[in-house]
């Protein structure tokens, strides 16, 4: 048995049957008790006089720092690290585009349409695909590398005018994104900044860097390199794995690292590597966000689909390996758990890392070098095939019936308009006439702490759609919602009458699957567009977001973007800020007067839905759309 529940009962049952493996679900119990200081954020380890812990009897650190300073410092450090992660991905992707554009990387570009659109936004005048691509990449890189005193140019091109106005007023227009991260580290080092408000404003700047660059632009670049998302029906869950193939599990967030491998596997030559070893070929199996990303674009690839589907979100990876059907796991970024290492060792699964930022102890590092994509792809394919040959005779394979084969996937900020018939007006009208009571983004990670794997995500989503609130989802939340059936059209049965009718009419599920956590950026573009179409600012929209089971520092950086956009952000678990009354008050109350956004913490899914619904209702009534038609029955 696993010692922690999952909302995905089928997965849980499978994991229970694999009791010979120690997984996060077992370790969660061992780590159940949390250190109170850590939870409250009041432990400071910045100097040799410490660690200092703030208590009522000792309310100041040796240096004199208060709980407010310590909490804010710790929080800013986390946000900076999370922001750095996403900036790493956009930087790598921009370099990839530039490398392709200059002919160094032997890869093709798969969406000229997206390139053209982005070039238009950037007001790039160069002609020719490759010259345009290079200019786009250069423009992004130049912003990222700006010093802190030079504002990033693209911010004003990407953000809503009203937001830019607000950010200028608050003086949080970011300088060079990497410099902002850098100075966040400076600011939070020993005996430097102790002003909690200044540090929180810096968090908002990092949020803007994260959202516009790390998320939105990474998506655009990936669209250009990897192909645009396409709405289609796909399969998710462990059943996507076919043991007749050499199977490569992919984890991470930096999709374009796999561009070479996908290109190789789409070729006859690539598949032949597996066929020569007696397999039917070589397949990619999705895990974590990079799988979600591949899932959203798989239809865009030419020829045979080499991506079999998304197996599951972050906390399913140990279970997927336990099926024994994966021969090699290639990881290029985070959400690759160390817990897979002993399982891989036991089952003879090869682990490779394609970027040293995600180097695992027992994995082999095969560095992704620009221009070397073809060789790397071949090396990975051969390695996986060799592993297949050496392990399959003895490795026990046990793939459960798991997942759904009618998942609607590939929704993006662009093609959602196609679903709605070209403009956002139908959605606006549905909200105005009360058929749909509002829009909620269910975003981010899964964790085990909020009642168990995907437990709060599923309970909250179920509650929201029941109340006719349309749910947009991206990240591991989506992975979980796909494997619990919420991204299938049949889930409209669980929706309230208004939403259900809309779902049936448009043939969509009540939860729209945007893919990876990077696609939180896509959802925020949709929100932008909605504001534009309605002539409003974002805080006025009947939209709320929730990261019900946020896990990591990246989620905190994402959250800061939501806050800088002026959105109300629900979290089921409080970040480590409660030790400071100032930080807590700013984030949960005062911020509303600044950006329009705020944090709401509520662990109970029903109560959280009540709060989110109330927020939407208040916004609607402020807009004067609180008609009888929009009376909400709870």
């Amino acid at each position: 048995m696993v010692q922690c529940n999952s909302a995905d009962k089928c997965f849980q049952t499978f994991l229970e049957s694999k009791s010979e493996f120690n997984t996060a679900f077992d370790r969660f119990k061992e780590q159940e008790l949390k250190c109170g200081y850590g939870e409250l954020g009041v432990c400071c380890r910045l100097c040799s006089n410490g660690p200092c812990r703030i208590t009522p009897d000792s309310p100041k650190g040796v240096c004199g720092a208060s709980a407010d300073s310590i909490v804010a410092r710790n929080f800013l450090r986390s946000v900076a690290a999370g922001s750095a992660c996403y900036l790493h991905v956009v930087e790598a992707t921009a370099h990839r585009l530039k490398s392709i554009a200059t002919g160094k990387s032997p890869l093709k570009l798969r969406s000229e349409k997206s390139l053209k659109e982005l070039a238009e936004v950037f007001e790039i005048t160069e002609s020719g695909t490759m010259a345009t691509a290079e200019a786009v990449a250069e423009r992004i890189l130049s912003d990222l590398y700006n010093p802190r005193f030079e504002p990033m140019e693209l911010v004003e091109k990407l953000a809503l005018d009203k937001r830019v106005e607000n950010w200028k007023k608050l003086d949080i227009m970011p300088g060079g994104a990497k410099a902002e991260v850098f100075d966040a580290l400076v600011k939070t080092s020993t005996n430097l900044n102790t002003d909690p408000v200044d540090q929180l404003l810096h968090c908002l700047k990092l949020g803007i860097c994260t959202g516009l660059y790390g998320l939105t632009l990474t998506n655009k670049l990936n669209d250009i390199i990897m192909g645009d998302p396409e709405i289609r029906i796909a399969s998710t869950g462990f059943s996507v794995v076919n043991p007749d193939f050499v199977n490569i599990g992919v984890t991470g967030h930096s999709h374009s690292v796999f561009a070479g491998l996908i290109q190789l596997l789409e070729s006859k030559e690539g598949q032949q590597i597996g066929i020569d070893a007696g397999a039917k070929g070589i397949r990619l199996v999705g895990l974590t966000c990079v799988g979600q990303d591949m899932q959203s674009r798989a239809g865009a690839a030419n020829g045979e689909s080499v991506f079999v589907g998304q197996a599951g979100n972050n906390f399913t990876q140990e279970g997927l390996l336990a099926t024994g059907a994966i021969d090699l796991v290639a990881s290029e970024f985070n959400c690759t758990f160390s817990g897979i290492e002993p399982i891989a060792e036991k089952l003879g699964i090869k682990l490779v890392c394609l970027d040293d930022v995600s180097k695992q102890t027992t994995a082999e590092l095969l560095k992704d070098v620009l221009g070397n994509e073809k060789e790397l792809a071949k090396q990975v394919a051969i390695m996986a095939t060799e592993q297949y040959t050496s392990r399959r005779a003895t490795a026990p394979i046990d793939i459960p019936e798991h997942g759904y084969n009618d998942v609607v996937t590939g929704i993006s900020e662009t093609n959602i308009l196609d679903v709605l018939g070209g403009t956002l007006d139908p959605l606006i009208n549905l909200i105005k006439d009360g058929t749909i009571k509002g829009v909620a983004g269910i975003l981010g990670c899964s964790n085990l702490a909020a009642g168990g794997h995907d437990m709060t995500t599923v309970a909250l989503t179920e509650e929201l759609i029941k109340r006719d609130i349309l749910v947009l989802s991206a990240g591991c939340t989506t992975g979980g919602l796909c494997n619990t059936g919420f991204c299938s059209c049949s889930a409209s049965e669980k929706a309230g009458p208004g939403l259900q009718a809309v779902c049936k009419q448009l043939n969509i599920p009540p939860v729209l699957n945007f893919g990876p956590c990077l696609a939180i950026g896509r959802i925020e573009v949709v929100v932008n567009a909605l504001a534009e179409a309605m002539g409003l600012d974002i805080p006025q929209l009947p939209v709320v977001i929730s990261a019900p089971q946020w896990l990591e520092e990246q989620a905190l950086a994402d959250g800061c973007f939501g806050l800088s956009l002026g959105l109300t952000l629900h979290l089921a678990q409080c970040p480590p800020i409660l030790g400071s009354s100032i930080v807590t008050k700013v984030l949960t109350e005062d911020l509303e007067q600044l950006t329009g956004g705020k944090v709401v913490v509520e662990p109970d899914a029903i109560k959280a839905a009540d709060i989110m619904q109330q927020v939407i209702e208040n916004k609607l009534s402020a807009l004067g759309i609180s008609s009888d038609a929009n009376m909400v029955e709870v």
Partner: protein
Amino acid sequence: MKKKVINLSKCIGCKNCELACIEAHTEGGKVAAYLAGVQNSVRSRTKVELDNNGKRFPQFCRHCDEPACVEACMSGALQKQDDGLVICDTEKCVGCYMCVMSCPYGNARPSMGDKKIMIKCDACTDKDCMACADVCPTGCITVVEGDKAIEYIEEEKPCIL
């Protein structure tokens, strides 16, 4: 005798008492003790876990008047001493773990290292102070003079931490 008073309202779950307990019962100082605890399974005699209501509860041997562990001990290693403490003679213990099976508080623990013996609180009788109380940063664990070995108390007003 020395009485350990545990004020439940003040436990913050930092586990400093666990660490100090391991250290107090391991040769070689703090880091060695920690590594021994983490890697080689020297166990702490105390453990902080959550009670039924999700509240932090530091578990300590109660040094019972009629100790079930002593009744279960077939080697004679566990004895209730005249001073009221329940002490294990680790040379005599054969690691049958009947005490583990019998302590209703879960405070008789099997060792995890190579030496298979039971592990329990010895009230730090060979030391000047009790290690767990000594390191407790919130004053949750204190030592006073009293007529029994241990007492749990809870304040009406909960600690803000």
